[in-house]
């Protein structure tokens, strides 16, 4: 992360910053592609929800945050973990369920945590993280800390009571929460208009008198700019902020999903406007980056992934004797 970037409410699109943004998105993309491969090899089990197509949001928002801000995400959180700065080795080992994973292997793909990075999961209950974010922000407020708690969730969460309860509480108590809704238009397989009477998600937040806006989540520049504005507002003590990032998931909901609910053409059409392809095209066209830079990024990332796989493979399984560890402080 570049020093001083959060002071600006607009991203400064320097070569270094663009390279950073692109590299983060490509890291996530290639990492997840590798995960899908490893899943078919049964190295990764359980549910595996891929973020492919939505990378601009995690990368764009995360860049607007400080090191001591808290981040909560969902079960589709590999991208957020990597963007937040968790070492890829630990994330990959967690995907394997190994001892050196970010949660010691206990959580797996859906429950990546890192206390040092204030990355508070990995919550696999839709909407379940929102009240926690409200509480974390409440603690900051009561203790006089100017920290921001950012909570990522999908548009499916807007149908949950916890979403509305949290919107209300955060605004009522003017808590420093940045709500980031990643609206990929499908709650698993149910299209937004089949599940919501009001499909304009950010309008729901606005009804709680929360500052709220919708942005193109496939455009990392727009996401980052909006996130910086939002974070500045929240950090200033003006209460919560709601950012709806409209996006699209290119892969299935999880690995075992034949995608009966949408056509291949629809996916293809969307992929053409994917966040990486768009940003990469733009930086090349604008002459900010060159193909060689991109090749270098790809090479870097490939190396990092190979190392992460090797790390995860080499890591030990937790001993059965430790089964009951981490249930309570006092066993």
């Amino acid at each position, binding site marked *: 992360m570049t020093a001083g970037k959060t002071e600006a409410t607009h991203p400064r699109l320097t070569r270094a910053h663009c390279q950073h943004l692109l590299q983060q998105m490509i890291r996530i993309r290639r990492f997840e592609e590798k995960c899908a491969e490893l899943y078919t090899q049964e190295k990764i089990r359980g549910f595996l929800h891929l973020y492919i197509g939505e990378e601009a949001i995690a990368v764009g928002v995360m860049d607007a945050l400080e090191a001591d801000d*808290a981040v909560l995400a969902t079960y589709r959180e590999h991208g957020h973990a990597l963007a937040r700065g968790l070492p890829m080795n630990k994330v990959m080992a967690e995907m394997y369920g190994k001892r050196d*994973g*970010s*949660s*010691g*292997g*206990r*959580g797996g793909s859906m*429950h990546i*945590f*890192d*206390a040092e990075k204030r990355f*508070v*999961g*990995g*919550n696999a*209950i839709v909407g*379940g993280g*929102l*009240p*926690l*974010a*409200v*509480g*974390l*922000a*409440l*603690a*900051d407020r*009561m*203790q006089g800390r100017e920290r921001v708690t950012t909570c990522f969730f999908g548009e499916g969460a807007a149908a949950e*009571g*916890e979403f509305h*309860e*949290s919107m*209300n*509480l955060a605004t*009522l108590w003017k808590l420093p929460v940045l709500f980031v809704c990643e609206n990929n238009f499908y709650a698993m397989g149910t299209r937004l208009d089949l599940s919501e009477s009001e499909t304009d998600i950010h309008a729901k937040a606005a009804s709680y008198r929360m500052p709220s806006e919708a942005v193109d989540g496939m455009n990392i520049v727009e996401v980052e700019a909006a996130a910086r504005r939002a974070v500045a507002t929240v950090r200033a003590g003006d209460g919560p902020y709601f950012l709806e990032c409209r996006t699209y998931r290119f892969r299935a909901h999880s690995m075992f999903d034949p995608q009966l609910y949408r056509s291949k053409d629809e996916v293809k059409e969307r992929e053409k406007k994917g966040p990486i392809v768009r940003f990469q095209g733009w930086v090349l066209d604008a002459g900010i980056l060159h193909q060689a830079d991109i090749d270098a990024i790809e090479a870097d990332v490939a190396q990092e992934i190979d190392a992460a796989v090797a790390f995860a493979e080499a890591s030990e399984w937790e001993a059965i004797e430790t089964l009951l*560890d*981490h*249930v*309570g*402080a*006092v066993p």
Partner: protein
Amino acid sequence: MSEEITYREAAGAAIHDAMAADPRVFIMGEDVGHYGGTYAVTKGLLETFGPERVRDTPLSESGFTGAGIGAAMGGMRPIVEIMTVNFSLLALDQIVNNAATLRHMSGGQFNVPVVIRMATGAGRQLAAQHSHSLENWYAHVPGLRVLAPATVQDVYSMLAPALEDPDPVILFEHVMLYNRKGTLDRSAAVDLRSAAIRREGRDITLISYGGSLWKTLEAAALLAEDGIEAEVVDLRVLRPLDADTFLSSVRKTRRAVIVDEGWRTGSLAAEISAQIMEEVFWELDAPVGRVCSAEVPIPYPRHLEEAALPQVPAIIAAARAALGKQGEPA
């Protein structure tokens, strides 16, 4: 120094003293502030500590319970008050899926030092949505500590260690106890591990907790008149259960009856019974008895409510049956 106060006052005093002792402690919940608490436990706290630390919440059990969990993770020591255990079902997701799991899911990186208090139990003719005893639902969940203080001393003294516990604690206050008077020594410390022997006896072990404890003690007193000396175990802590205490009592008496206001099926009584079978089967002289609530949502009319709940005669009958004595005492 001892004082004679009600359970309600003791519960309130515990919160007051905890808040006075530690600025991280605050209380939040429906009507805890301006209203003074549904059961008047928090009366007067708003005036003393202000609205930041005595925080009225909207009727959003999941939202504010989750917020309490989050605040605990953020370094505070919240006391979340949920009006009744029935309403806590709206917060079950936060308690079970978050509070109880976060430490484990995160490989021990995060912990949730929250205390969630709630009223439980029947006896006030509040009918089927305000009267149930679902303590066992929480006692089922690893990652939670579940307390059921039955005495004035316990309801006061359990709060401080509960707040010191790095993990979530659920604290049940039976509605029929609030007006009960008892002796409180504020300086006495209690632990959050042990069951208590409230009455010693050699003939049979009666195991109970919370509101049923007093009925059980009453039954034990009546049994004594009939020459039956019952030992009464107050579980105090419903999770983790202090099996050592009740098992060693049953080893002594060789007979046990469990009095539990929860419904019989899948009850805490069933769990205790199973543990007795597992651990002391060969030392038993009678099948383990259970006195539980009837399998019906708690009805409104007094006579039906009373019929649905464990009562003294039923406890006596169960104890006598376990001793091979049928019918009414001589």
